[in-house]
């Protein structure tokens, strides 16, 4: 650890990121440009989230890193090790114990507290990007609060599929002003964004930071006759039996059999630890 500056980044870079975070908090949902640095990992592996975490961490923090809800996937393990080595912080897999949680594409099932900070890794921060490729235009659209195009996109979903088919990175409006990309979390997680913790978003390749302060109004876009629905697979977790958590579908053999398991590994483990048993776990016991 002594060979690195605390949390890897140099101090001037951290100051630049910190100023962007403060402006992001002051204008919730607005994407603040920042001079993203090259990190010792490829774009798409959380370089934005890592930079935001590095500028946010203190030596006393306990860090948790999740990738699609799991603590034990390559991305999560390597980022956790990166900060163990460069910042010397404690790490944990338990949501309860963590003070800073860096996440890729999920919000933990456990309710987050006021003293926690959630850092999202964001691939494409601009919710309008796939509708309008020019940054000059999307910036103008945000400044004029011109979000008609987004509603047309959702309407086309309904006319083609009979329902709003967008199931992840579902656009939200923050505090009645900015339309924001919540990062590719499943829309099941959207209602959780009105939370007690501070939410910070970092997009490394796209060089944007944005934020949602605690208790900020976050509304998923919808229509009166097609209201927003937070959907999940219509099953219970096959390991812990949870019916309220977001599930991953796993193909388990060549015959096409499948199982559904909690995407949040810590939530699933703690439920099993408390004695909850799902459909397939029962067979194991028997």
């Amino acid at each position, binding site marked *: 650890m002594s060979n690195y*500056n*605390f*949390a890897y980044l140099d*101090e*001037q870079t*951290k*100051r*630049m990121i*910190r*100023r*962007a*975070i*403060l*402006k*992001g*908090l*002051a*204008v*919730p949902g*607005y994407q*603040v*440009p920042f001079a993203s640095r090259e990190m010792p990992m490829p774009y798409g592996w959380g370089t934005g989230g890592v930079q935001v975490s590095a*500028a*946010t*961490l*203190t*030596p006393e923090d306990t860090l948790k890193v999740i990738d699609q809800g799991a603590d034990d996937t390559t991305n999560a393990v390597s980022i956790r090790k990166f900060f163990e080595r460069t910042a010397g912080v404690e790490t944990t897999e338990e949501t309860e114990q963590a003070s800073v949680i860096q996440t890729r594409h999920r919000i933990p099932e456990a309710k987050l507290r*006021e003293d926690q900070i959630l850092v999202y890794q964001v691939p494409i921060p601009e919710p309008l990007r796939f509708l309008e490729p020019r940054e000059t235009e999307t*910036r*103008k659209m*945000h*400044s*004029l609060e011109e979000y008609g195009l987004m509603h047309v996109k959702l309407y086309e979903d309904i006319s083609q599929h009979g329902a709003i088919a967008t199931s992840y990175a579902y656009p939200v409006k923050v*505090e009645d*002003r*900015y339309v924001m990309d919540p990062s590719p979390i499943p829309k099941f997680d959207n209602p959780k964004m009105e939370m*007690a913790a*501070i939410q910070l978003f970092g997009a490394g390749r796209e060089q944007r930071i944005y*934020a*949602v*302060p*605690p*208790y*900020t*109004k976050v509304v998923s876009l919808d229509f009166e006759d097609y209201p927003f629905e937070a959907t999940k697979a219509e099953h219970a977790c096959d390991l812990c039996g949870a019916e309220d958590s977001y599930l991953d579908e796993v193909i388990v053999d060549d015959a096409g059999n499948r199982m559904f398991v909690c995407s949040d590994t810590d939530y699933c483990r703690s439920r099993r630890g408390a004695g909850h048993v799902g459909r397939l776990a029962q067979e194991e016991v028997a």
Partner: protein
Amino acid sequence: MTQTQSISFAGGFYDAPVAASHAFRAAMTAMARPGDIKVIEGAQPPKGLSVAAGSLLLTLCDPETAIFLASDVDSPELRGWLTFHTGAPFAPAEKADFAIGGWEALTPLDQFKIGTAEYPDRSATLVVEMPELSNAGPILSGPGIKETARLSLPSLTEFQGNAQLFPLGLDFFFTSGSQVAALPRSTSVMAED
């Protein structure tokens, strides 16, 4: 002259990466939760500036940020101290990224940058030195506040006018001793009943 210089060199962060991380956590929590009063310390600025304001400036300012010193805090000692520890250039109010001073000396607020429609982040952050901070007085509501909060603001109408500019506008830190609180432009301010 020699003595002035030696004062300038002292009073920086002892262990800059760690001290700045603690100071930033306090500043960020304050900005994310308007009305919350946090402790921020680590710097020992020259006489005339609070520990909180000094720590805030060392955490956030560097050669990329222009600082405006209001007349009540401006002094050769402070300029020397900030230049040595941050390298930040000094600028008139209309060009400043950060402004520091007492409330009277910082007003009128319309001399500061409020950002542009496409880049509302290009606005000034004001660090207002206060005699004291307490959770009393005007009622705050908005992002970061569960229901309402209270903060001893130095004024009412200026902050209401600033909130009207949203998403443009100024963001404020209030400092006293080693305490810091914040008021972003997103907060609406009401008189106490």
